[in-house]
């Protein structure tokens, strides 16, 4: 077997050990795989759990309303809600009979996993109304409430429906003012918050609509007048017109950058701790009798790169699935994925080689903290730059920082994902070239430090000493 093949085989063994004792451990599987899967499960189950646990509002609601108008309006609103609910349920039944069990609905070119217009968080209301015109009945109604015969009593004062009243001209009487601005709602001790909210919403809506009637105003017209319009932003370019989703467009870059950040930092951290462990367990010299420091470092970097890629693919895959779910898959392109992987490689090898060098130079994690500065700067700066770059991906700041080696992967991902216009190809090529060259330089420097550091014991070195180690023979 040739020397290079033998060396390669050794590197593969080291890499496999890194994967085996990092990714195939209960701690990793629980923390890195289990938690996101559990979160995903929770996202799916949460609404179902909520819908099943929300107590429906059932029983008799008494409305003390001398005008009798609000009670009628409440009845109309409840009937409309009931009809809407029935229509939605019918639609759901129809979808279930479609292929794919109705779970997926083709909508606007994207896939939607959402149910039709059924609000899972809405409390089901099944009320009987008891409209009482005489306010003198209130004490008796309260007795019935306490006896559990009623779910609530709403007392609608006449003043509340007086649409012509000038509130500022009223005498300074708090009680009078309160009757113009609010109504009383008596509830039992055990009424749930969701039931109270549902009851309040219906009653408030009924009061507003009654006022509109009394003022001879078409409520729906007024509502339409007062509703602020939405905006459908459309980007016009030479390639055509593309609809813009500003919120998603703002979130996507940070999601991609965080993916890069988390997978890089986690794997870098694993390299740091495993190198320190090998030093503190004194197994390093045994290893160096079998492999060269360069082979050891390469094996560790490659092994952890598989772990990092796994995390990247897993979390990234979840994000892409999420985009499919909300019919925004068109925001992700094959080009963006390929470039993300390229920038991931640059970020990973840059941070991981620094971590390996630091791990080789110290004897415990506490000592490592003092040397973590450079790695942390690389990781913190993108966080600071996130907002200005996503706000203006073509700014001088964005372009310049996109060519500064340690920041290249993070800044370029932010730029590419947030820019509506394609980033000039020369900028991408230049950033990849500079990134690749800086990875080579960083690997060389860190390998020099690693080679010396792995055999050093005692006091942790200063940054200056690390520079001196690079020159050691």
């Amino acid at each position, binding site marked *: 077997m040739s020397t290079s093949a033998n060396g390669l085989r050794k590197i593969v063994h080291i890499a496999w050990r890194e994967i085996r004792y990092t990714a195939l451990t209960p701690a990793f599987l629980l923390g890195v795989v289990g938690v996101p899967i559990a979160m995903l499960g929770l996202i799916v189950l949460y609404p179902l759990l909520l819908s099943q646990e929300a107590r429906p509002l059932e029983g008799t609601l008494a409305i003390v309303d001398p005008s009798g108008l609000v009670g009628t309006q409440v009845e109309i609103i409840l009937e409309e809600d009931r009809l809407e609910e029935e229509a939605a349920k019918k639609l759901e039944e129809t979808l279930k009979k479609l292929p794919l069990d109705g779970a997926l609905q083709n909508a606007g070119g994207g896939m939607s996993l959402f149910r039709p217009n059924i609000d899972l968080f809405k409390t089901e209301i099944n009320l009987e109304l008891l409209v009482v015109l005489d306010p003198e009945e209130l004490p008796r109604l309260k007795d019935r409430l306490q006896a559990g015969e009623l779910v609530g009593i709403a007392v609608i004062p006449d003043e509340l429906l007086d649409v012509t009243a000038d509130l500022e001209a009223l005498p300074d009487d708090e009680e009078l003012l309160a009757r113009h601005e609010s109504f009383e709602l008596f509830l039992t001790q055990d009424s749930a918050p969701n039931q109270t909210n549902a009851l309040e919403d219906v009653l408030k809506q009924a009061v507003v609509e009654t006022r509109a009637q009394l003022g001879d105003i078409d409520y729906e017209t007024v509502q339409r007048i007062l509703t602020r319009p939405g905006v459908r932003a459309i980007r016009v370019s030479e390639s055509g017109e593309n609809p813009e989703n500003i919120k998603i467009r703002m979130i996507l870059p940070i999601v991609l950058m965080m993916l890069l950040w988390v997978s890089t930092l986690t794997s870098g951290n694993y390299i740091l701790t495993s190198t320190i462990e090998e030093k503190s367990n004194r197994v390093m010299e045994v290893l160096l009798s*079998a*492999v060269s420091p360069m082979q050891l470092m390469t094996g560790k970097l490659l092994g952890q790169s598989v772990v990092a890629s796994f995390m990247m693919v897993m979390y990234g895959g979840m994000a892409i699935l999420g985009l499919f779910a909300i019919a925004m898959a068109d925001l992700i392109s094959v080009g963006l994925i390929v470039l993300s992987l390229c920038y991931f490689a640059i970020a990973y090898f840059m941070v991981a080689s620094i971590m390996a060098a630091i791990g080789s130079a110290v004897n415990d994690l506490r000592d490592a903290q003092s040397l973590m500065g450079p790695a942390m700067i690389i990781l913190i700066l993108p966080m600071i730059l996130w907002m200005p770059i996503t706000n203006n991906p073509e700014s001088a700041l964005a372009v310049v920082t996109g060519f500064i080696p340690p920041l290249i992967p993070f800044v370029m991902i932010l730029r590419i994902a947030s820019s509506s216009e394609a980033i000039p190809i020369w900028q991408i090529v230049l950033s990849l070239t500079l990134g690749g060259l800086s990875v080579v330089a960083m690997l060389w420097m860190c390998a020099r430090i690693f080679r010396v550091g792995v055999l050093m014991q005692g006091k942790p070195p200063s940054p200056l000493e690390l520079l001196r180690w690079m020159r050691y023979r």
Partner: protein
Amino acid sequence: MNDAIHVRGVSKRFGEVQAVDGIEFVVPAGSLCGFLGPNGAGKSTTIRMIMSIIYPDSGNISVLDGSALDHKDGIGYLPEERGVYRKMRVGDFIKYMARLKGMPSRGLGKRIDDWLERMDLEGVQKRKCQELSKGMQQKIQFISAVIHEPELIILDEPFSGLDPVNARLLGRTIKAMNDAGRTIIFSTHVLHQAEQLCDRVLMINKGRIVIDDDLDTIRRRHDPRTLRVRTAMDAGGFKEQAERVAGVRSIRFGEDPEVLEIAMDDGIDLGEGMSHELIEALNTIGSMRSLEIKTPTLDDVFVELVGTTIARVEASETT
């Protein structure tokens, strides 16, 4: 190939400390060589340079007619610092090290079993390294250093930390490997073990080689020219009269008060040609229960050489 290791004019300095100072020696192929020296003499530094783990400031080292880097798979190395992956299972650890040393996976399990049995460690494959005692971990590390049957075996303090039974077991194993044709060099402080095992001794002190020879030559060269006499009479009276015998330089009591150690002048033959006159002269003083020529042990040589160096250094420091 005649020499497994050839060290020529090698020096190494760590800051202000000259750890190794222009040493030269060879370890012939097939030899079992003890590398002796006091603490801080430069043994481990020399071994690490032989292994190309660190590099000399000057001079050069040839290992198996090349560099240790080119022959990593042909060398078995047990470093002074004992280390295992604490959370790895014993079998996995040995297998991992064997694979890094270029062994194919086929037949490896059987070989691991054989070695564990040989080192009295049956049934520990599935246990985690951290569950084993320090001595057991040391034997595991020894197995992982030699399982690939290397041509050259370098052991740095292999006996330290082992109880006498395991030290003897390890000694027998080392001897057996040497008998099977392996070249072995090991450093140790346990001089009697080196004496029992080695056919060649290197002694280093203050970074310099002070002895590089086979054991018989060393003993001859450091012959203390001393007779040990056990008398049947009062040892004090015997000493008084014996001091007047021609050729006697000095006499002192041995550890046993009935034993006298008589140092003879350089011209007196204590070998086969020992004169009858001398024996007669001593015998006339009083009857002797035994008369023997004291053979220098490595301990004696070690103490003599290291002690002389220390005395010289102390003398130069006071002037």
